[in-house]
């Protein structure tokens, strides 16, 4: 009986756990609830993915109201994969959170932290699972509002400005998105995604629909930190508490990218998007400029968290590049990079969180000589960095491989060259950290740092090893991503 309700429970489990954490009022109890619910969510996501791969899309009518009148939850191979990413990262990040939260957040706010964490998870899972355009907005707000609160819990005062900046930009993005959905509703009279897709054809060439497309792309562009709309991201990631950075960096932008995929391909359709003058070219240009501008900025950062945040902007560029190719290979590369980037950034930010736990700082000059004092943490960082660069046997290689294949398929040699060139920039900024940690002496005034506790090391290494496992055995990730790409482009699957 429960199996029929997995789609609803995916969102409801964290939604109910969030107020429960407030009632418990004990940080440790709230943490246990968070971990349990994150694991339940992961189990449900796996079940849903298996179900979707075996029998096709799963549809769930919320409140028993049939679509298109009621809200429909609809899981197909695309969002089943994203659900797996979000809940998988949370399942590793929640156990990791305990130590860093104790260290970084005042004790009377612990239960509120976990409550906001669960609400953020609810929102991210909700955006992904819903088949209703307005419902996306509602969950977008749930995840955004809770992430503003989470970021503002960061220890430094700058966290408040960072959260405020994100709040302003995020609200503009959400409003633009809502205006776009409103315009679509005005033209089609429906909010159900599948229904919109069916009814958009006759009115496709009106200005209103074109304006809706523009509003939605810009709005989501803000949320997914598409260059040059990324300005909120570096500060938000740099000053948020460690566990929050892990969760947001590995999931939030991914979900926004998914939403863009869903709207561009399922609602408007690839043909419509290609008809929009220069849309694909524009996307590719922005993606490439973003990759280079953000990577070059990353090289010059002294705060390593900020460095990786800029690197995230660059990685979003790769995903958008995959979208811009408008081909099965390109989309496969883009979608598989959602998963792969979540793994590498998750691992890297976790390692940094462990460094912060011991040093109270992640500035590069403070991390000198850390390779000998925290060998396991720093080695995880190095491996994560290699994955970010795209070394063979790591997941980063898989993503770039498909992106380059897609570029060659179209005969765009220069783009393939640029992708390779941009990897060198990743080498540059990862090397700066490696050099400081392994080839410099520790600063004399710094007390000797010891290895991070196991509670931090185990999650870090789970994600680090996943970088290699999914870099060698790509049958699951690339298989599902290719299936999702075909489904989005309407070529069966």
């Amino acid at each position: 009986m429960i199996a029929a309700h997995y789609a609803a429970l995916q969102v409801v489990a964290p939604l109910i756990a969030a107020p429960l954490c407030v009632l418990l009022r004990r940080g440790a109890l709230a943490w246990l609830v968070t971990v349990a619910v994150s694991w339940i969510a992961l189990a449900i996501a796996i079940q849903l993915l298996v179900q979707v791969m075996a029998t096709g899309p799963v549809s769930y009518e919320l409140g028993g109201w049939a679509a298109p009148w009621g809200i429909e939850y609809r899981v197909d191979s695309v969002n089943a994969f994203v659900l797996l990413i979000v809940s998988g990262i949370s399942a590793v990040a929640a156990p990791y959170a305990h130590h860093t939260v104790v260290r970084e957040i005042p004790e009377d706010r612990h239960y509120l932290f976990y409550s906001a964490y669960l609400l953020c998870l609810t929102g991210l899972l909700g955006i992904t699972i819903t088949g209703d355009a307005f419902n996306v907005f509602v969950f977008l707000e749930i995840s955004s509002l809770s992430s503003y609160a989470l970021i503002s819990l960061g220890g430094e005062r700058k966290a408040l400005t960072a959260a405020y900046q994100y709040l302003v930009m995020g609200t503009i993005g959400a409003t633009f998105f809502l205006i776009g959905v409103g315009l679509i509703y005005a033209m089609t009279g429906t909010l159900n995604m599948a229904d919109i897709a069916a009814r958009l054809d006759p009115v496709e060439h009106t200005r209103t629909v074109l304006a809706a497309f523009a509003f939605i792309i810009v709005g989501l562009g803000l949320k997914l930190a598409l260059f040059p709309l990324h300005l909120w991201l570096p500060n938000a990631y740099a000053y948020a508490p460690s566990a929050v950075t892990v969760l947001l960096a590995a999931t939030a932008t991914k979900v926004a990218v998914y939403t863009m995929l869903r709207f561009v391909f399922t609602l408007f359709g690839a043909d419509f998007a290609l008809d929009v003058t220069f849309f694909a070219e524009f996307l590719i240009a922005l993606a490439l400029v973003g990759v280079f501008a953000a990577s070059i900025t990353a090289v010059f950062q002294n705060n390593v968290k900020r460095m990786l945040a800029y690197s995230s902007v660059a990685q979003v560029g790769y995903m958008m590049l995959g979208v811009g190719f408008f081909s099965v290979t390109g989309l496969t590369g883009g979608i598989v990079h959602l998963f792969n980037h979540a793994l590498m950034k998750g691992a890297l930010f976790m390692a940094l969180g462990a460094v912060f736990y011991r040093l109270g700082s992640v500035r590069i000059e403070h991390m000198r000589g850390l390779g000998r004092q925290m060998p396991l943490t720093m080695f995880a960082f190095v491996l994560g960095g290699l994955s970010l660069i795209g070394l063979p046997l790591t997941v980063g290689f898989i993503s770039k491989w498909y992106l380059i294949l897609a570029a060659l398929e179209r005969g765009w040699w220069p783009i393939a060259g640029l992708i390779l060139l941009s990897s060198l920039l990743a080498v540059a900024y990862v090397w700066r950290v490696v050099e400081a940690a392994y080839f410099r002496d520790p600063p004399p005034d710094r007390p000797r740092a010891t290895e991070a506790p196991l509670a931090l090391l185990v999650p870090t290494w789970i994600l680090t090893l996943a970088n290699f496992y999914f870099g060698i055995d790509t049958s699951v990730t690339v298989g599902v991503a290719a299936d999702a790409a075909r489904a989005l482009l309407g070529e069966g699957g």
Partner: protein
Amino acid sequence: MRHHVILRVIAKLGIPFIVLFALYVQFHGDFGPGGGFQAGVIFGAAFILYALIFGLDNALEAAPMNVVVAFIAIGLLLFAGVGVAALLLGGNYLDYGALADDPVAGQHLGILLVELGVGITVAAVMIAVFFTFADRGR
């Protein structure tokens, strides 16, 4: 506000009726204009008026902050719990029809409880926001 006799007397007279009106808007919402959100705002306004006239300390004594915060969670739990109850009784999530033998009665009961959840959370959030700002710099 100790010397403003008129304000104190009128507020004392008015607050019970404001609360009563909030409950009317809450529970009559399925037959007339109203519902949980409006009722919650009116209910919260009664507390805020009390705090403005009689001081924050008295208001905090009537509604301690941790109780208010707990009610924020209770309202949401009530809403989500109704959904789960429907699910356990054999319907889809939030399918109120499953709550009673007669689907129409079930729908009625479901929306009443859900709106009560909304009302509780909205009132508690209003009060909490006011207390938080009023408490700053003290």
